[in-house]
């Protein structure tokens, strides 16, 4: 569910440096934000360093040994080194799978937000600055996308793209497909915010003046209009990062996301869900905890950012 109502209106523009220092002060004053930032940092580090701090590459089929299947976590009497958090039914080390899976989740979340930002900001600027039919076309496309629920668009794109691809590409393109599937329904939000601000700014005297002395349009957009909208965009992007990770997990859980041979956290939960009642709780519980921790830390930072940048709530 897209939390689209939450974009605060653009605050009056202030000196960037002052805002930064305010932000830093506010950050230090909120222990929950500091905690979330440290948590996210640790989780990200773990994901980035996965190949060096895990005993197994869970994506290398030849590394999985069926003999090692269904080993419980280490603290259990049947636990076995080096399988810290146990193994799944294929002999895949859960600890390794979680770190590699977090990597996928974070990368897909981050890339889809970046893609949506890039598309949304450029289209929004163009629409707001030029107006006329360009504006009309872009915003109508946006209207159509917003008239379908977020999750539905993502499911359709992912399912259709996956079904259309040959298997050897399917595996390689699974992540890019998900990135696009999640980015497509989310760029409109940024485009609308930027467009509104661009429409206001372009009527202002300095823009008119700049136009008169033939400053190139893209220069005006990038240097004058864009900076004015960055605050609400930044908050929205942070919150959407959490949402994108959740969306990826949901798609994978429904079986239209990452394939089982390169599992993301959602895929691990989907697989583990089948063994929930078999006593193999560790297959589902650890990935679920990791997923919740990632999203929670992102959302806590986003939440703090929104409060800190929205003067109305202070």
């Amino acid at each position, binding site marked *: *569910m*897209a*939390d*689209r*109502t*939450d974009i605060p209106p653009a605050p009056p523009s202030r000196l960037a440096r002052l805002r930064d220092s305010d932000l830093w002060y506010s950050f230090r004053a909120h222990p*929950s934000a500091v905690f979330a930032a440290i948590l996210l940092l640790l989780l990200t580090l773990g994901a980035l360093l996965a190949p060096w701090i895990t005993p197994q590459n869970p994506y290398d089929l030849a590394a999985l040994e069926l003999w090692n299947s269904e080993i419980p976590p280490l603290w259990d009497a049947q636990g076995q080194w080096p399988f810290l958090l146990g193994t799944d039914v294929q002999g895949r080390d859960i600890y390794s799978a979680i770190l590699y899976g977090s990597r996928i989740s974070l990368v897909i979340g981050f890339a889809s937000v970046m893609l949506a930002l890039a598309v949304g900001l450029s289209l929004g600027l163009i629409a707001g600055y030029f107006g006329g039919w360009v504006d009309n076309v872009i*915003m*109508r496309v946006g*209207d*159509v996308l*917003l*008239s*379908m*629920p*977020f*999750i*539905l668009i993502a*499911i*359709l794109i992912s*399912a*259709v793209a996956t*079904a*259309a691809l040959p298997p050897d590409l399917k595996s390689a393109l699974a992540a890019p497909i998900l990135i696009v599937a999640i980015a497509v329904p989310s760029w409109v939000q940024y485009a*609308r915010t930027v467009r*509104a601000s661009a*429409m206001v700014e372009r009527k202002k005297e300095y823009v008119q003046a700049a136009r008169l002395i033939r400053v190139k349009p893209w220069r005006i957009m990038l240097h004058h209009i864009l900076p004015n909208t960055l605050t609400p965009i930044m908050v929205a992007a942070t919150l959407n990062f*959490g949402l994108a990770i*959740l969306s990826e*997990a*949901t798609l994978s*859980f*429904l*079986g*239209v996301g990452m394939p089982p041979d390169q599992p993301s956290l*959602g895929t691990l*939960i989907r697989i583990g*869900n089948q063994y*929930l*009642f078999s006593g193999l709780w560790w297959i*589902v519980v650890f990935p*679920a905890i990791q*997923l*919740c921790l990632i*999203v*929670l830390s*992102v*959302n*806590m930072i986003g*939440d703090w950012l929104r409060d800190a940048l929205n003067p*109305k*709530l202070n």
Partner: protein
Amino acid sequence: MIAFLLKRTANAAFVMLAVAFLAFLIFRSFGDPVEMMVNEQATQAERAELRERLGLNDGFLTQYIRFVTNAVQGDFGISYRNQQDVMVLIAERLPATFELVLVATVISLVVGIPLGVFTAVHRNSRLADALQLTSIVGVSLPSFVVGILLILAFSVTLGWLPAFGRGETVDIGWWSTGLLTPSGRAALVLPAISLATFQITLVMRLVRAEMLETLRTDYVKFARARGVPRARVHWIHALRNCLMPVITLTGMQIGNLIAFALVTETVFQWPGMGLLFIQAVTFVDIPVMAAYLMLVSFIFVVLNTIVDVTYAWVDPRLRDDTAAAGGANG
């Protein structure tokens, strides 16, 4: 006003036409309906003949026009899998999804509004901070994880509530309801809570934000100065001012809840439209997928248009074009 109304309606119609185009485009390229429908032993000639009869050899535009014409009349064809009229299938499932969404919405309001008011009024208390933090946890828990945990706790371990299905239902005309039987109500509890989790935090945060603003207004300050009791000011005067945005949010979120119910319905095997859709995806049952996409989008567009028109009716200044475009920002 009438001009505005016409304009919004035309806009909605255009959007629906575009959605229909997307639906059509996607489903044309997804799987092969003929392979789905024929017996595995059918010969190439039989397949070709079926292809011809289904009109799959016609031109692209012809097929699209036929698709839209039929869709307007509520005809989405026959489900490849069930061999039953798609609209009949969906109509049978509609009550289940609607009741789930309705109950989830009620839960989100009944829980979310008081929490929102509380956290706004006592905004520096520890309890409010804790609730605020919990609400972040609420939006961070994937709803399928919530569902799995609820089943594990209340169905498997405690055995209090059913883990799947709708329980016993009663037919009132074509509407089948689970609200009138004990087993139907029991079956509704876990799915509704799981679906409402996200919505509760949404309502709570909106009420909190609106309350904080209202509490700062002179109107509330005057009321306090006049000696109206604090609780009365908070819960009656201030809250009344926040209700409009809450109603708007709830209205607009219904479309999202219907769509998101497909995750809940998958976890709880709830026999609603979402489960039908997910099963249709599995079986490449294209007519069902098309009909579901169109129906949910239709509900979405209608709700958005109603909200826009209502706003414009209440506040005539919004009838100008730019504001209307912004107003659809759900």
